[in-house]
């Protein structure tokens, strides 16, 4: 199972659910398509810009690695991956 973890501010996109388990294997884009099917347009609108890019203020981590340092939305997601969606707030 893929484990999707959303920080509480981001979880408004999933009606407050902060940990979601999903049977999935594929790419990050495919995973987000699946989550969009489940939670509808509000998820998509909150996480993505109009042009399909991730919003500037959302960071995605696949097994602890920032997806920007991997292959972005094409990053492979193995079936036991943990994917974190966190607000982009780093540093003091």
């Amino acid at each position, binding site marked *: 199972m893929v484990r999707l973890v959303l920080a509480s501010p981001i979880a408004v996109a999933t009606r407050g659910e902060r940990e979601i388990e999903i049977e999935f294997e594929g790419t990050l884009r495919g995973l987000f398509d699946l989550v969009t099917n489940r939670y509808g347009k509000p998820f998509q609108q909150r996480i993505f810009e109009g042009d399909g890019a991730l919003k500037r203020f*959302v960071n995605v981590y696949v097994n602890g690695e920032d997806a920007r340092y991997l292959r972005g939305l094409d990053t492979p997601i193995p079936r036991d991956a943990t994917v974190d969606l966190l607000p982009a707030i780093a*540093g003091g």
Partner: protein
Amino acid sequence: MGYVRGLRCRACGAEFPAVQLAVCESCFGPLEVTYELSAVRDSFRREELKDRPRDLWRYRELLPVLDESARVDLAVGFTPLRRAADLGEALDVREIWVKDDTVNPTYSFKDRPVAVAVAKAREWDLPAIGCASTGNLAAATAAAAAKAHLPCYVFAPASLEPAKLLVPRIFGATVVPIEGTYDDANRIALLTADRRGWGFVNINLRPYYAEGSKTLLFETWEQLGFELPDVIVVPLGSGLLLTSLEKGVRELRELGEVADPPRLVGTQAAGCAPIVQGFESPDGRPKPVKKPETVAESLAIGDPGSGFEAIQAMRATRGFADAPNDPDILDGVRLLARAEGLFTEPAGGTTVATLRRAREDGRIDRDERVVLLITGSGLKTPAVWRDAFQSLAPISPNSTAVDAYLEGLHHG
């Protein structure tokens, strides 16, 4: 009595009440505190400021703490603004001032934002506080937590200088040493704060935390006789210090206290310069750095949370961004120590190095009045000097041996 109006998103402008909210609920952008400035204007008067306590609470109308009893009093702020005439001569600048924040309770400017964040944590009765830190924030949070009788959890890279991991433990904090970079520590701190309901000062208390830093700007304004300088050189980690200063300027302008904003100049080490690279790129977005490599550990944040806003602020004020390399940074530390008797950590050397470079290529003019922010003490980072001086072999305690030693020595 507070003058807070609420929170506003810097990105989309959405407004919220002043509750415990880390980011904008509609776009996840950064939030800032807003005030009822017309009410502030009535009591935030120059003549009244003079008689107030010499700490950061003298600007209380523009700080978001509603319950005065929630403050912990560590005598933070109102640090010296020193005229640096010898440094000015060395760098060919007519008027340099150094804002010496090494004299705060835990020897860095981080005591300022922490003072506000911890007061909010107490107002909201949070069970524990913490932070993700490159070192300075760890000490500041731990000290304030001790005084507030709150448990404190510090998430930091395990590879930090030993002194920076030791100090918070002396204050009684629990250090969680994370394998990896600051950004790894920050990510896991964010998840932990979220799961456990703790208040992490630079994460879920961030909009309030940021307010403490702008007192550096208010003090500079007051100490220069209620004037702002032409240029402020600011070290950049996350970029939040610079955006807080910009907010302070904006508030003083809206109160009618100042006219033109100073040029805000940001500086990072070349080995971790995501904001500087973003400043130089057309899209103005920070360029994340996966593995920072620099002696300026306190600035080594690869994915700076306030980088975009810092770039906008530098552009809007006709400032610039600069990234000196490590040897230049250490030369800057040495120059400040030898010219002004002030020992800064590498972050302060970064500001000196940038001023030097900007004089060489004319980005800062000789006649501009410049303020350098010296945000942390050099005593915290002795390890960066490990290879800079010859080791000291003991000399026999007699005059012949001492004479022989002194004659064989390069002085200085």
